[in-house]
């Protein structure tokens, strides 16, 4: 029961703050709600006993990326930005996209139910104490099974980093 309450708490928090990120006019408020949304997602990870994903979410997204976001936002002249027109108002396109996405989700559920005797997405819960530690598992998987994609991703990041340094150097 408490697990269910916890899940709906985090999920609701994530959805509400995600909506508020888009609707707030003040960029700093948006950033704060984005932080809340990320933290709520981290909370869901924690509930699934994926501690490593939880803390990586907190360290990387909240502690790293969002700090830089806020850093940049604070340098913007907010008084001007608040009174400017900030959004492209394209209701029709957004509506069509939403309908298409909703239909897609519905179809997935509908056909999955029709074709199977077991309901989809209904995995047997495993006891947390029976699972292997999440951190070691992720490390072992990344460095054995997914070695090549992992290395490709890190080379991509390295290229981006070097690119940023080169671009910053040229300006001086």
């Amino acid at each position, binding site marked *: 029961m408490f697990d269910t309450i916890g899940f709906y708490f985090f999920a609701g928090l994530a959805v509400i703050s995600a909506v508020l990120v888009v609707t707030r006019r003040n960029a700093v408020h948006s950033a704060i709600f984005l932080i809340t949304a990320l933290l709520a997602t981290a909370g869901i990870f924690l509930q699934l006993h994926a501690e490593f994903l939880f*803390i990586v979410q907190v*360290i990387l997204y909240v502690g790293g990326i969002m700090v*830089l976001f806020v850093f940049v936002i604070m340098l913007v002249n907010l008084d001007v930005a608040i009174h400017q027109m900030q959004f492209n108002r394209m209701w029709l396109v957004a509506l069509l996209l939403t309908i298409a996405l909703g239909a897609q989700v519905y179809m997935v559920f509908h056909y999955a139910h029709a074709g199977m005797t077991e309901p989809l997405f209904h995995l047997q819960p495993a006891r947390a104490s029976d699972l292997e530690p999440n951190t070691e598992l992720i490390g072992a998987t990344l460095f054995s099974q997914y070695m090549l994609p992992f290395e490709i991703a890190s080379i991509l990041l390295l290229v981006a980093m070097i690119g940023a340094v080169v671009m910053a150097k040229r300006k001086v």
Partner: protein
Amino acid sequence: MLNSLYEFFKPHLLPLLFALVIVALLPLVAGYVVLLERKVMADMQARLGPMRVGPHGLLQPIADALKLLIKEDIIPENADKWIFWLAPLTSVAAAMLAMAAIPFGPFFQIADLNIGLLFILGIGSMGLFGIVLGGWASNSHYSLLGALRSAAQLVSYETAAGMAIVSGVLLGGTLSTRGLVEAQASGHVWFIFVAPVGFFIYLVASIAETNRAPFDLPEAESELVAGYMTEYSGFRWALYFLGEYANMIVVASIATTLFLGGWLRPFSSWHKADFLDYFPMLLMLLVAGYSLYRAPKQPVAVQKIFMVAVAGLCFLLAVVLGLPQFAPAGSAFVAMKPGVHGAFWFLLKVGVYLYLFLWLRFTFPRFRFDQLMKVGWHLLIPVSIVNVFGIGVALYLHRSPEQGGYGWGMISSVGVTTLFTLLIAAWLLKKHEQAPATPAAEKF
């Protein structure tokens, strides 16, 4: 309903109690760290420091807290009220939450997480939002500059601190705080002796992360009034201070757990040094005796009573710490020994680390901002990367041949790689000394 509530909380009762103890004691401890700081500062500047409230100023923190509580709470007219209210709370909450995974002793720990160290780091770094948002919400130039400096400084030094922590984690082979201490116990060596460069980098980076002098640019009073908390007053200001001091305790605890052997006694596996087990009791008896000796010399009756009370408290602690030594084997007191003595040694080490913080603060002048960035990016980060690399090589070398290593001794492999790291550091320093001095950056 009530029954299910009880069933749910039953396994968490002890951790909840610990959490309550930490939340209740932290403001008091932070207050006394402030007093300690003022006393140490006074001692280093050949003064007496606070002497009026209580004997030797021992009641000063309580007087300060009362004063701050009854001060007027000012919110600037154009401040973003909601964030202005939220920011100091974030600072304190993050620091308190980070304490959940700190092992204050083999028994006194709220949660032994598999990711303990990362948890402390990640949650602790969220305290930065308190500073940044508070600085922004105040709607004042000084506050904003302080907040920007703080964000830039933390982002720069977190990388170095993270790399220094990685060097310790590599040696321990786990992220669990308890596992790290146990690894140091079974390895018979504290990691500071295996990774001295890592410890040094963490020391510097942790001072920068907690915004302490000589890296206290975000609140540099000679340039920015009080930095990010210029507009704060009364109890909100006190919350910022509480957050800062709680953060100091957190980083000191990380350093203690990772590099200084956590709750382990010095020479814990060497039985000829078992006489050190008497040290906690003797220290407490010494303090109690000194307090009793000073009690009649206090000018006011209340101060005399307070001094005797302090002596009594210390004597009680001495009894608790000494009982396991003299109790017959097999009694409950002997079973209590690891917990009580572990907590004593842990807190002693945290205290020594904090004293180092204070010592550095009163010894070094403040860095300029471009110097701070240069130390971080040009020296600490490269050296910390080389250090992690070196520790990895050392671990590989000193493994026995059956495990796929070369079977060098611990001392030789660690010595060679540490020497290599130090050479790189010296080379970097020399290079920057020869480089033409860049004009001072006036951007921040």
